[in-house]
């Protein structure tokens, strides 16, 4: 299938941009969706595919459980669920070098954290505000961090982390460590000046960054066409003289391929803008019933569910049976359940820790 969208389908050689891949106008482009290509075409091994399935399911079950725990008031604050978008996080985690490349994202960060290999225990404990949480209970849902995995946060100010992501890329290039930064933000964030400034700086300085707009069609209750004059968000790339492209965020094959291409470009110090069209099934956060969407729209989108799609592929290609996939699901549910127990048991942070990690020095003279 070809569609009227655009992506640089192969990385440019020697850092030179292939003019055909610099998207200045719409071009015909072949996509890489799971009903059209095989996983081996994409260089994915059978086992890896099953891992991807497990991981997407883990994100889903983790968040379903988190929603339940929120209802029980075990979790407070904002809780923005990623349900529906799991193909994006899993796609990128398989395309990048975890621990060498860097990731920064907004507040909808549970999915990417789990995809990058952070444990359900540390993530659930963070949601519970416990000392074993990935940010020691100081960050909560919106602020998952892992120095080890190079997840530079979950960030709560819409668009505020985009320049930071470009700065992380700047340091990769400065240190010549070969790493790239993958910087995620939403369709709402693209209208912040910080996006514009960051994209311009990234292109001006030729930084190893992939700017990824996760277009899930809504910024809170505002549909993308009510916020952006140009709804093909990837086209904004032309304004920064960088490649821009579109991927199907509901299809993990297409995500994986798109991220692989764009990360390769970034390794050649070619920044780019990748739009992934995805969808969140839940409201913006737990307090949002999502009344701005119709039932039909929801049903349509659920038919495109990334997990069901991959399941169909696995079964259809005799890589798994429904039963063996059910076993994976049971295993994942057990893991998540155990993480709730872990989070329950983990102590609350000691009160003195309120003064820790504000400054480097231990004896900072706080007003007490």
């Amino acid at each position, binding site marked *: 299938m070809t569609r009227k969208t655009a992506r640089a389908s192969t990385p440019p050689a020697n850092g030179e941009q292939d003019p055909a891949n610099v998207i200045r106008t719409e071009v015909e482009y072949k996509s890489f969706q799971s009903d059209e290509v095989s996983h081996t075409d994409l260089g994915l091994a059978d086992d890896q595919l099953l891992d991807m399935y497990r991981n997407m399911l883990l994100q889903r079950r983790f968040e379903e459980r988190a929603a339940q725990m929120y209802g029980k008031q075990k979790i407070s604050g904002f809780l923005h669920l990623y349900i529906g978008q799991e193909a994006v996080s899993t796609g990128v985690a398989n395309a990048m070098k975890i621990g060498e490349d*860097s990731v*920064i994202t907004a507040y909808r960060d549970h999915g990417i954290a789990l995809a990058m290999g952070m444990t359900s225990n540390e993530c659930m404990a963070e949601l519970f505000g416990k000392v074993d949480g990935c940010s020691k209970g100081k960050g909560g849902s919106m602020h998952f961090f892992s120095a080890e995995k190079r997840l530079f946060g979950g960030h709560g100010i819409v668009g505020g982390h985009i*320049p930071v992501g470009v700065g*992380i*890329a700047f340091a990769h290039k400065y240190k010549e460590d070969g790493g790239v930064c993958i910087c995620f933000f939403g369709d709402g964030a693209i209208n912040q000046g910080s996006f514009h400034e960051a994209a311009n*700086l990234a292109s001006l300085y030729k930084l190893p960054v992939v700017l990824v707009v996760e277009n899930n069609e809504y910024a809170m209750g505002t549909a993308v066409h009510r916020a952006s004059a140009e709804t093909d968000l990837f086209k904004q790339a032309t304004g920064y003289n960088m490649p821009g492209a579109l991927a199907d965020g509901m299809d993990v094959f297409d995500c994986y391929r798109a991220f692989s291409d764009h990360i390769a470009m970034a390794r050649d110090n070619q920044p780019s803008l990748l739009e992934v069209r995805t969808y969140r099934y839940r409201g913006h956060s737990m307090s949002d019933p999502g009344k701005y969407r119709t039932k039909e729209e929801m049903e349509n989108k659920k038919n495109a569910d990334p997990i069901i799609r991959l399941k169909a592929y696995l079964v259809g290609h005799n890589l798994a049976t429904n039963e063996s996939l059910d076993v994976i699901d049971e295993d994942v549910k057990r893991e998540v359940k155990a993480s709730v127990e872990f989070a329950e048991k983990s102590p609350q942070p000691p009160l003195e820790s309120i003064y820790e*990690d*504000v400054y*480097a020095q231990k004896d900072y003279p706080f007003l007490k």
Partner: protein
Amino acid sequence: MAEMQFREALRAAMVEEMERDDTIFLMGEEVAEYDGAYKVSEGMLAQFGAKRVIDTPISENGFAGLGIGAALNGLRPIVEFMTWNFSFVAIDQLINNAAKIRYMSGGQFKVPIVFRGPNGAAGQLAATHNTSTESIYATFPGLKVVAPSNPDDAKGLLKSAIRDDDPVIFLESEVMFGWKGDVSEEKNYLIPIGKARIARQGDAVTIVGHSKSYWVAMKTAEMLAEDGIEAEVIDPRTIRPLDIDTILESIRKTNRCVIIDESNPFASISSEMTYQIQERAFDYLDAPIMRITAKDTPAPYAKNLMEYYMPSAQDAYDACRKVMYVD
């Protein structure tokens, strides 16, 4: 010791530190090819090259954030704001990112970055180019705020700021860039952040003044000396952390205090100092603390209004005599 302008002392600090540690780089508007809007970075592009002395577009939010990301990922950026007035365009980066990421990440990430540039009034530039920002940034835990008054302190404190593992707001002054003073040439000349300087000894009244206000304080002390009144002058040098102990020690001796601060008065650093002093040394005070600040208005353009707007030595002199019940 060598005689240096304030701007030369700042440059010397940056150059010495950049020679020592190649993860340090300088970025900002006009810092490189133009040699610095106020020539603080003159010659640095030639010495360090375009990798480490970097011109930016007029994108304060963007390059402040870029610096923070670079700091998170192992570098030590120095980000120059052409003036601190323009930092307001980047305030989200400073307050929501630089100040808070260490805390929110449970200490996993540090943000060793210096934001520096001219702060406060610089003649008749009117309201948008004339803001003292110390109390704004000092209110946020996670940031350190430094405001030196002379070239030697500027050098020693900037070197400390660059080596500090936390984000430092380093406030200079446009009118002071050309002022001269003796500066240490020692390579490891570090003045600790958080230590005030007793600039003049006296027992009649304590006058506190940082940055340019320090010079007003010294002038005031000279005027008082002509009356036979010996004032003690304290230059806090660092706004956060504030060396309140040194101020208190002086007040326990003089029992009187006047604070000079060119910020707008409402919720200013002088408000904070006043509160901390009464909280900790109320019993030692023989008179209410007085403060001399900028007027509680935006800065005007007209020469006479601007002079009236700024804290003056005459006003401080009158205040000192008042707290001593001389008049």
